[in-house]
């Protein structure tokens, strides 16, 4: 980069010498242009590296082993997408966390929020900042599986509890002792979805999935479970997170003549585009989706009505009432899991746990009925949840018994 810049400077100096011959000037002018283009390409690459390296684990440079508790207040971090295309999930979980903080009546707890845009790089920055600068003892987050997996080794290394309310990738099971979640793994949802499809007499399935931890993992599990049942996956096509042109993937799916399409996406932008383009391309099959589709943006798509999604618990009636009273909203996707994630930490702190290791030990012993159901962590920090089936009718998701 520095070398290129030098070149540019030299060019400018020499072009300013006006006594040069014309063709000579043109050569340097052209060099200047190609320098600009090269720098343009470098910048594009830097911008792009975010997409390419999303989800790759980064190691911390500033790892400090000790987490001192200097202040009287115990600091808890929150990290998730508060901006970006997954922001609606991040805000839903944040609202769950805030409600849990209010209900816990803990006065010695402070929450520090970090926005990560569901991006692996950003989540590494956020977890480093929360641990090394703010000195948190536990973190609620990340939201997307790729980002959770990127942050997990850093939390583990620093003995800080990381508890996710929405990351469902099966890889998180092995992420470490300090890594918990209040949402069951996709291993369970994939199995549940495969059974649901098979019960609905679907034997030829196609899968459209996001090309990242969540989508890839879900696709693998759903494919193997569905084929174990005797079904056949006739097409499985992927797309980049946030991509809005899925016509060719869908054309390939159409050609394979499936009985149903199962969409796995945690990007509302892409899910909305897929549902629109399925209609535009005249693909008339049943459409199913993972819980990532159960959000307000998808519900608003007029032609998506009839869509069936599998989803983790939408929360107890009591939670729904409390949520309505607090925010004037019905519980959003993952907000009960967010409530439970903070509640699990709050119960540990209430019991006297002050440091990461103390909270971790308490969590493994803990068992309570939370907003999303029974919470009891197994030796991998996992919960066993149940799933429900919802259908989109008149722009709302209605539970099918």
């Amino acid at each position: 980069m520095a070398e290129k810049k030098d070149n540019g400077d030299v060019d400018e100096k020499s072009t300013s010498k006006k006594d040069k011959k014309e063709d000579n000037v043109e050569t340097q002018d052209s060099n200047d242009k190609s320098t600009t283009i090269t720098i343009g390409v470098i910048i594009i690459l830097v911008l792009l590296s975010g997409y390419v390296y999303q989800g790759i684990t980064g190691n911390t440079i500033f790892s400090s082993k000790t987490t001192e508790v200097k202040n009287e207040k115990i600091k808890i971090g929150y990290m998730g997408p508060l901006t970006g295309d997954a922001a609606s999930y991040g805000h839903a979980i944040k609202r769950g966390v805030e409600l849990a903080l209010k209900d816990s009546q803990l006065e010695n707890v402070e929450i520090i929020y970090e926005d990560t845009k569901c991006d692996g790089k950003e989540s590494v920055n956020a977890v480093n900042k929360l641990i090394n600068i703010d000195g948190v003892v536990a973190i609620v987050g990340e939201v997307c599986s790729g980002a959770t997996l990127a942050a997990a080794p850093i939390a583990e290394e620093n003995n800080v509890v990381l508890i996710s309310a929405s990351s469902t990738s099966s890889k998180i099971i092995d992420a470490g002792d300090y890594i918990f979640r209040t949402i069951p793994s996709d291993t369970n949802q994939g199995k549940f979805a495969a059974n649901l499809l098979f019960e609905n007499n679907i034997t030829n399935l196609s899968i459209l999935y996001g090309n990242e931890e969540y989508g890839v993992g879900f696709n693998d599990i759903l494919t193997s479970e569905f084929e174990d049942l005797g079904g056949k996956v006739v097409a499985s096509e992927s797309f980049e997170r946030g991509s809005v042109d899925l016509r060719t993937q869908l054309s390939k799916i159409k050609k394979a003549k499936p009985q149903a399409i199962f969409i796995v996406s945690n990007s509302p932008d892409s899910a909305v585009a897929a549902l629109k383009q399925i209609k535009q391309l005249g693909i008339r099959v049943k459409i199913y989706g993972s819980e990532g589709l159960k959000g307000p943006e998808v519900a608003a798509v007029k032609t998506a009505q009839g869509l069936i999604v599998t989803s983790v618990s939408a929360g107890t009636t009591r939670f729904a009432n409390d949520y309505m009273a607090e925010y004037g909203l019905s519980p959003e996707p993952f907000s009960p899991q967010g409530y439970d994630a903070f509640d699990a930490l709050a119960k540990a702190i209430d019991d006297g746990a002050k440091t990461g290791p103390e909270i971790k030990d308490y969590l493994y012993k803990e068992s309570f009925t939370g907003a999303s159901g029974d919470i009891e962590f197994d030796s991998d920090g996992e919960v066993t949840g149940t799933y429900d089936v919802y259908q989109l009718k008149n722009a709302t998701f209605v539970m099918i018994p």
Partner: protein
Amino acid sequence: MSLLLQVIVNGLIAGSIYALVSCGFSLIYNTNRFMHFAHGVSVLVSGYILFTLFTLLNFNFYFALISSLVYSSFIGFLIFRIVYLPLQNRKASNVILLIASISLLLLFQNLLQMIYGANVKDIGFTDIKIGYEIGDVIITQNQIIILIISIILFVSLFLFMNKTKLGKNMRAVSENKELASIVGINSKKVSDLSFFIGSFLGGIAGVLISLEQNVTPYMGTMLTIKGFTSSIIGGIFSVPGSILGSYILGLAENLGILYLPSGYKDAISFVLLFLFLLLKPNGLFSSKRRVN
């Protein structure tokens, strides 16, 4: 066979969308010789103005459409006058202008997100329905409009750059600014106009893309990257070339994933970008004398 035809049409639609962005981008580059990455701002602003006036405030669609185009043209022009021109007057290098343009794109992206939120916005002008079936190929009305407009742009920009006085002036300034001023061309005025027209084209792109793909604060960045890639392929020194480059990119991406796994879609476009930079840095349609 029917799949192949459908994928070619998909490629042409994608190419038209890229062309809408790249022609304005390349027009501005042609006259001013720096990468105006903030071209995405015109696209964004036009999409959000359309959303605000038509969807939120229920104004007449055509009023909203014309306002979007006016706003996006002026925003491009003002960016030139308020940001680039003072920098140029201070003898800032093109690299500095490039960095300024990227920060402008990020600034507007985040401003719009602050105002409107990160959610996908649907303009809701046309109902989502199955497209026309022509043989085995399906295409919607909006996509036909996008295709036609980008072809019209291709022809009219070709004529504009080669036949009109203003177009010739732009080419003169782009080739040699000093020589152009000697023969009496006001290069500042030409720059003004290039930003105005380029951003107007960006506005057209914003409207059509919003109708086709909905509005999000992030669409500007991805479209600018694709528009830039198209310009490199087609030849950044040629406006009609960059439109053809867009079609090549759209077709390559879509035909590529017909045979490769779909996850390679973006990879294909960047492999193409590198191949062109290595083997044909001036693109397919730039005249040879610039190669030196």
